């Protein structure tokens, strides 16, 4: 009996059934993909880290090495299973020249190593330990993915020619998030080029009991060993390795959550509509003595069939897509060897989705209990649903016309059903607007305030070159004699050491110079003006635990001096950790210099950029807008693309749901439509009524969605941006886009969908729906 009921019902509502199956399938596909990816990723990373014997603890160190002290430390610690000191020959990117160009613009620290003897092996793509021969170079996988090199290519390093013999998996530095990349060469070649770079040491340990890592870290720090560089532990390597693919998994999960929500909304409103349609029938079934659970079974069976079909389809499709997504994981980390676990977890996640859908259907069906049989049989409609919109009287509808009034009344009378459509429209408006606003904010000139940089016309960056100070002075001299330059300032970033409250030392980048010439906007306080003052970036202030008025000790020219924090500012560049001060110190390591200038006539900017770029070839000359594009161009493009994709998807979902919703309403309102037609309403009258309903719901949806985008959306985007170091965040809204184009696109989508969805209204025959 169930089978026949299900089949008839599905055949009658093919489009609606197919849509729900599609959403469930999409959800199942994404959920199972996420499960498979999680298992494979963690398995593959574990595999790689086991095969490569990743160190449990690694201290990077630049400068002199005290090997005797280290050996003494090892002798005292029996928990050390193995240890070694590897060399990492840091060579400037400009000296590493591939056939397609050098690595001059690379943000990575590129270094050369020989294969390790004991652990921390560099592996080939078959996970074997590589033995490089003379003249051979093995290139990190990320450069292969970027298409920089192919096997057999020539690479010139510090004047010496190498042939790319293959690519290497580096369990430490595979991730693009890790700031260093290791190339592998032979011992002889290493000796030959070792004069062209700066050696850093990787002091590495493997422990007998990795769980005692915490205690070991403390012991190492306490022993006062060489530690001029970051410390990285096994769990951190693991996290770095999993982050980029992990992000992809997170995005998939996020999208699948959205799809599940939409699937649930679809199920909810088809169910509610079906219950309304079958109201009398349900009353009759209750009246003749069937239990609520018996009646529920009929409906549950149908949705179980739909959910099962969708889940199976989605799971089957996941086999098609998993290869594609696993490719990257396989390339970076090798095979996971967890195929059966992945399959099991994939099945389990789909099964879970299936059960959640059934539980959801079951909870929607709870309202059966509230249907009073006598009333249902007599009226065939739920009593409470005739409430609402009471004050809209047809007799007073002159202003908007009877059809529009009928549309509005219906929405107000059946709020529960329209709430579903409203929810979808609010979400859609949110998805259209938030990424757009974010993109606008990042693209706006005012975004510079988040970057710890003042608005100037010209910006000259001097970095990755020798004798930065002299070169900056040359530029300054040229500007001094240039009549077109209104104001200019040379700001030089140097690294210093500061001491934290717990006594430990930390490196801090301080930008030195006169910060009052071309001032930035401060989140709190003001620019430093005296020798003993400093301004901190918001993120630095947070990490150092300093506020305006606090004092921070900084080692300046070998002496510790207390600087007063006089201001904080947003900065999302350089990892968000910067500082500004006016004191002079020529002894600290210089990192880069920036010369900023404003022009008397800013229309000359283009010409001046060309002039200075031609004159100072070592410098990067740009306008501030260009600087933003250079620094965040990729992010801006990505967000711009994402915002367009998001808008497209949101509009597609809007069309689909509206279409589905309208078709369902028409099917359900057959009787009312037939009555109105019998009494002389035309098909276009009916259409106007449905358009009025849709537009009414849409307007509320757009208003709510826009409000939500500007509050919750702004807060979310702000939270994301503040994690990069911004203090406060406000959307820069393009009113034409946000308040005109986006709503118009949505109105257009809803109108098209309503027109298509109400086509069936014309086909409703009075005689078939009203005849006794």
């Amino acid at each position, binding site marked *: 009996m169930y089978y026949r009921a299900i089949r008839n019902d599905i055949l009658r509502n093919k489009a609606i059934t197919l849509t729900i199956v599609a959403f469930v399938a999409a959800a199942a596909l994404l959920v199972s993909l996420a499960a498979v990816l999680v298992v494979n990723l963690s398995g593959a990373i574990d595999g790689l880290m086991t095969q490569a014997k990743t160190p449990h603890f690694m201290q990077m160190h630049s400068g002199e090495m005290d090997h005797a002290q280290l050996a003494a430390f090892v002798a005292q610690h029996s928990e050390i299973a193995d240890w070694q000191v590897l060399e990492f020959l840091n060579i400037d990117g400009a000296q590493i020249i591939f056939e397609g160009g050098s690595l001059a613009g690379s943000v990575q620290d590129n270094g050369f190593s020989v294969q390790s003897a004991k652990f921390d092996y560099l592996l080939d793509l078959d996970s074997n330990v590589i033995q490089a021969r003379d003249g051979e170079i093995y290139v990190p996988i990320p450069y292969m993915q970027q298409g920089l090199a192919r096997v057999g290519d020539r690479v010139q390093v510090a004047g010496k020619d190498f042939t790319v013999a293959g690519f290497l998996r580096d369990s430490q530095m595979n991730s693009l998030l890790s700031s260093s990349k290791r190339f592998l060469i032979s011992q002889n070649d290493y000796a030959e080029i070792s004069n062209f770079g700066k050696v850093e040491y990787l002091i590495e340990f493997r422990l007998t009991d990795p769980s005692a890592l915490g205690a070991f870290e403390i012991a190492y720090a306490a022993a006062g060993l060489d530690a001029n560089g970051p410390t990285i532990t096994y769990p951190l390597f693991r996290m770095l390795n999993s982050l980029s693919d992990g992000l992809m998994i997170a995005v998939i999960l996020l999208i699948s959550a959205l799809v599940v929500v939409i699937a649930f909304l679809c199920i909810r409103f088809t169910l509610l509509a079906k219950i309304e349609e079958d109201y009398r029938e349900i009353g009759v079934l209750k009246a003749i003595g069937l239990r609520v659970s018996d009646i529920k079974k009929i409906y549950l069976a149908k949705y179980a069939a739909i959910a099962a079909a969708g889940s199976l389809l989605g799971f089957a499709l996941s086999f098609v897509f998993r290869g594609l997504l696993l490719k990257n994981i396989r390339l970076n980390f090798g095979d996971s060897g967890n195929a059966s676990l992945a399959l099991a977890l994939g099945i389990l996640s789909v099964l879970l989705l299936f059960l959640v859908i059934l539980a959801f259907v079951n909870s929607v069906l709870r309202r059966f209990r509230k249907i009073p049989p006598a009333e249902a049989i007599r*009226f065939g*409609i739920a*009593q409470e*649903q*005739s409430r609402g*919109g009471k004050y809209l*009287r*047809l*007799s*007073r*509808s*002159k202003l908007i*016309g*009877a*059809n529009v009034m*009928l549309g509005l*009344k*219906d929405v107000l*009378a059946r709020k529960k059903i329209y709430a579903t459509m409203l929810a979808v429209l609010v979400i859609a408006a949110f998805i259209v607007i938030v990424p757009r606003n974010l993109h606008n904010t990042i693209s706006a000139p005012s975004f510079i305030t988040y970057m710890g940089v003042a608005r100037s016309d010209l910006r000259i960056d001097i970095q990755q070159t020798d004798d930065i100070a002299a070169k900056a002075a040359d530029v300054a001299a040229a500007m001094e004699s240039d009549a077109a330059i209104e104001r200019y300032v040379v700001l030089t970033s140097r690294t210093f050491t500061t001491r934290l409250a717990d006594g430990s030392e930390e490196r801090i980048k301080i930008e030195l110079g006169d910060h009052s010439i071309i001032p930035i906007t401060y989140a709190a306080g003001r620019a430093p003006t005296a020798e003993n003052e400093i301004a901190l970036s918001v993120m630095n202030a947070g990490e150092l635990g300093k506020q305006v008025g606090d004092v921070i000790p900084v080692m300046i020219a070998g002496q510790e001096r207390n600087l007063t924090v006089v201001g904080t500012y947003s900065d999302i560049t350089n990892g968000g950790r910067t500082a500004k001060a006016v004191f002079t110190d020529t002894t600290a390591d210089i990192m880069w210099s920036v010369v900023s200038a404003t022009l008397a006539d800013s229309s000359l900017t283009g010409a001046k950029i060309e002039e200075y770029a031609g004159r100072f070839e070592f410098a990067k000359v740009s306008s501030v807008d260009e600087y933003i594009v250079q620094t965040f161009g990729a992010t801006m493009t990505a967000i711009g693309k994402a915002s367009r994709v998001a808008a497209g998807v949101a509009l597609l979902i809007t069309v689909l749901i509206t279409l589905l919703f309208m078709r369902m309403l028409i099917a359900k309102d057959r009787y*009312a439509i037939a*009555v*109105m*037609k*019998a*009494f*002389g*309403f*035309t*098909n*276009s*009258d009916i259409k106007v009524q449905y358009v009025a309903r849709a537009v009414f719901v849409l307007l509320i949806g757009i208003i709510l969605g826009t409000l939500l985008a500007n509050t919750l959306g702004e807060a979310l985007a702000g939270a994301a941006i503040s994690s990069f170091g911004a203090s406060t965040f406000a959307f820069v809204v393009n009113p034409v886009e946000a308040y005109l184009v986006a709503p118009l696109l949505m109105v257009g989508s809803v109108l098209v969908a309503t027109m298509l969805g109400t086509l069936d209204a014309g086909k409703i*025959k*009075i*005689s078939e729906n*009203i*005849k*006794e």
Partner: protein
Amino acid sequence: MNKILVGENLVKSFGEGDERRNVLDGVSVEINEGEFVAVMGPSGSGKSTLLFALSGMDGIDSGKVTFDGEDMSALGENELADMRRTEMGFVFQQPTLLRNLTILDNIILPSMRDRRANGAEITSKARALMKTTGVAELENREITQASGGQLQRVGICRALMSDPKVIFGDEPTGALNSTSASEVMNLLGEIHRNGTTILLVTHDARVAARTERVLYLFDGKIAGEFLAGAYDEAGDDLKEREERVISWLAEMEF
């Protein structure tokens, strides 16, 4: 006498393939202006189909319907809708009222469709009709707050709003108890006496006994006609008229 409604050789079939059958199989009827006519016949004989065909609510496969001299087959869907709204009235077995509207709004609904409609005038007309039909106190009620008989009178009010030339009734008393049914029929009788043409479908001999002429439909054809003459509520014995109808129906093998 002027023929207000004429159906000639009406054919209408339902079903697919072998199961296709003519529900109307060449029916011809003529209804005079001011006449009160009932259509009777066994279930499935095509009574309602005939009513829907004559009122332009349902198309026909062949034949011709003329309403007040106008060939309805030449009219488009919108013109037919306009005709139903302005020149015809309908009363169905179920009240066919919209649940979101109050009783008053249900009555004025078709009249308010015209944007130039005068809301105040329409409302006062509706109130007057509600008073005549005894449902004035229901004005602001929901349709779920009235009895079946009351709702049927509301339906009649709605049908009268456009001062129709013809009122079509599809078993208008079919869902009512005998008291309510009698009240509704008294009301229709009064409307008829005021000059409105009424054509109704019924299976109830007591309802048919109040009409002037009864048509008997069988297997999609008019099988017989019974001329009962005008019913005078004060002077005629309804019981006796009903018996005459019943014995005629017996002749027709009803």
